């Protein structure tokens, strides 16, 4: 295979790390002491952070309102079940679709915005929705949560059990399938166009690129993934309350992504692992001041590993194997045959 074809093929190829990553989740299921409920939480946070990664890591758009889409998905799944649609898989897909449509609409609204203006508008939209849901107690149950949420067994066979075995496997399979689709998406020409628009929208314009269309679509896709993460939370915990829409959640998902590393898809999961484990650990030490330590972790990560934990780990590994320079990652390319 000629050098340039190999170069592009390598970018699409599965690495041993990726396989090991997903296998570890399967192994965790069989370890008797595993806290499956906690691991499900981590997967859901991870998937939510991946939705943020699509927006921030790939398209370069920051948002303080991602929880709005998570919450829309969570409540859609809740309402579907309340009104008798308890089949989880279709419920998951419908929740993603509803959040995705709202995301497309939001994409139209924020199209011309950048930087701080974008942060403020997404924050504003998120706050509007949160207040509405929290205050509409007759409609949503307010802080007590939506009453009457429950789900049918997955595929009609596996009931959601108390220790969360079904919930964990269901979440893992859903996350993996969604991840596979996103992985393919970011390696398609569309993924490259997102990176191009992140790096330089003006050049993209002069290549004739439909950057407005691409932006609206990525908002929709990102919202759909966030919505499915929210639906997974409702389905595995059989509970949904306004907290799913809170600004705190929007902020946390950014923290998770930045700690893990944006622009790799895996950074979201790595960040969620670090964040949730540490949150549990610190909350056990001191249930009131645990965010102090998360804050410290964020400061240290951004100070010392600007691009997040995952790239830092990858660099470290690369150095150990090939103790040359950073440029070892980009060996002198061979003469390219036309």
């Amino acid at each position, binding site marked *: 295979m000629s050098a*340039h074809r190999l*170069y592009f093929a390598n970018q699409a190829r599965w690495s041993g790390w990726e396989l090991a990553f997903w296998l570890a989740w399967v192994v965790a299921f069989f370890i008797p002491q595993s806290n499956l409920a906690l691991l499900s939480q981590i997967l859901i946070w991870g998937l939510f952070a991946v939705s943020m990664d699509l927006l921030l890591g790939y398209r370069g758009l920051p948002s303080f309102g991602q929880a709005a889409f998570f919450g829309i998905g969570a409540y859609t799944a809740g309402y579907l079940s309340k009104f008798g649609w308890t089949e989880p898989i279709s419920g998951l897909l419908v929740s993603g679709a509803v959040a995705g449509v709202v995301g497309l609409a939001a994409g139209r609204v924020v199209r011309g915005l950048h930087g701080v203006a974008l942060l403020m508008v997404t924050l504003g939209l998120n706050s509007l929705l949160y207040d509405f849901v929290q205050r509409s107690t007759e409609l949503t149950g307010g802080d007590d949560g939506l009453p009457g949420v429950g789900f049918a067994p997955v595929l009609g066979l596996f009931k959601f059990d108390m220790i969360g075995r079904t919930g964990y496997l269901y979440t893992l399979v859903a996350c993996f399938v969604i991840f596979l689709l996103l992985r393919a998406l970011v390696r398609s*020409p569309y993924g490259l166009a997102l*990176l191009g628009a992140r790096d330089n929208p003006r050049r993209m*314009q002069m*290549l004739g690129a439909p950057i407005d269309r691409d932006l609206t679509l990525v908002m929709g896709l990102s919202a759909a993934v966030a919505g499915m993460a929210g639906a997974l939370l409702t389905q595995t915990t059989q509970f949904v309350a306004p907290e799913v829409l809170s600004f705190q959640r929007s902020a946390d998902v950014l923290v998770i992504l930045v700690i893990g590393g944006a622009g790799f898809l895996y950074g979201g999961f790595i960040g969620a692992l670090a964040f949730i484990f540490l949150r549990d650990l610190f909350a056990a030490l001191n249930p009131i001041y645990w965010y102090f330590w998360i804050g410290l972790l964020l400061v240290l990560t951004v100070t010392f590993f600007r691009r997040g934990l995952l790239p830092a780990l990858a660099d470290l590994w690369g150095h150990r194997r090939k103790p040359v320079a950073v440029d070892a990652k980009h060996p002198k*390319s061979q003469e390219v045959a036309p």
Partner: protein
Amino acid sequence: MTAATVLQTVGLTKAFGGLCIFKGVDFSLQAGERHAIIGPNGAGKSTFVHLVSGLLKPTSGSIRLMGQDVSRATPQQRVRAGLGRTFQINTLFPSLSPLQSIALALCERDGLTAPSLRALARRVDLLDEAAALLARFGLAADGERPTGLLAYGKQRVLEMALALSLKPRVLLLDEPAAGLTTAQGHELFDLLTELAGETSVLFIEHDMALVFGYAQRVTVLGGGALLAQGTPDDIRADPVVRKAYLGH
């Protein structure tokens, strides 16, 4: 020179508030022509390129590209009508490699960037074309490194390669040799002459050696208005130009 006009502006005017910075310029570019725009700083050269490429909207006047009125068209519509341009300051994709950048340009040209699950790696014809194009611009050895790490001169070449990869009918070059040494500037223009093919080229340039060496026609702008137009020899001899611009 053929008689076919590929780009024409009539009474093209741009005002910001009450300040008129570009005043009723009539201009035309012929098919296959190499046309230089010169003028002192603030003459409106870059404004002209922005107006033609659609990054600025004209206050009045019209722009015709390949016979089509594009005065109100978006930059993207003008690109599809056959326009390409480069920027005075490198406008590249720093984190993408040159191979990826050119592949992206070709994907946009072919309209392949709608969301899909098909890997770019499987479009081998397009990748072969990207690699071949890069090789013709002498960038084959740098194809896989992030563009942001390339030497400035190579980034300048990539800037032109990106614009030419779309095979535009009209190419606008905004100071392509800006920041290059004299030798590098000549190399860049040699490359342009070799690879532009049938593309009509309109370029802004300050280096008079490059202007008089490569242009078939020259337009002189001053204070947002057209001062003179003609062959390099006409321009060199024009007393108005000598006084206003060349300064001797």
